[in-house]
């Protein structure tokens, strides 16, 4: 195989990966899993009887997976414009995610210092909060961009 053929094959498989979308039916599945995970995360103590860290982490992961499924699901009418809007929404999610991760600890520190009279320390955000924020921004911005296209 020549170098050019190899590069073309590589490019083709990369484009295939970039354009990968789940079938439309996965949106409903994602929404159901998201709803269930969200409710169970809030009422886990009442439902499971204990407040276990494993249960909490498991529900957080299923919440993230459900949002990722919704993010990767095909649109009703998928064309080159929706692909462009989707890429734009991923860019927004990435940029706002970085800003959120950089700024939020200081905001929390400021608010905490006021409420706890200066006994607060600067912490870091967990991966769950950053990922949920990024996925939320992606899903919402994609919806907004589609509405105003």
């Amino acid at each position, binding site marked *: 195989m020549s170098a050019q053929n190899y590069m073309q094959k590589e490019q083709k498989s990369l484009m295939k990966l970039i354009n990968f979308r789940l079938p439309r039916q996965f949106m409903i599945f994602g929404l159901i899993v998201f709803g269930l995970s969200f409710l169970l995360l809030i009422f886990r103590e009442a439902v499971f009887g204990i407040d276990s860290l494993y249960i909490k982490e498991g529900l957080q992961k299923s919440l993230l997976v459900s949002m990722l499924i919704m993010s990767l699901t095909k649109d009703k*009418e998928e*064309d*080159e*414009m*929706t692909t*462009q809007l989707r890429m734009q929404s991923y860019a927004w999610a990435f940029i706002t995610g970085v800003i959120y991760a950089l700024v939020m600890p200081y905001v929390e520190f400021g608010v905490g210092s006021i409420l706890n009279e200066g006994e607060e320390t600067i912490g870091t955000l967990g991966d769950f909060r950053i990922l949920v924020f990024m996925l939320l921004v992606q899903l919402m911005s994609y919806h907004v961009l*589609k509405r105003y*296209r």
Partner: protein
Amino acid sequence: MENTIKVERAILDLTQEDLARKIGVSRQTINSIEANRYVPSTVLALKMSALFNKPVNEFFKLSPDD
């Protein structure tokens, strides 16, 4: 970029929906192209060219700020 797709569509007596179906995109995409909110890809422009039976530069023109 400016375009006269609306005029070309009227010549062929096509609705946005008809044109969208013929070139395999959504009606909203045609609407956005006509309103100059979206610049289509070369593939889409060539599909339109084949449908209108005209070269691309007859219905797509660069605007002064391009």
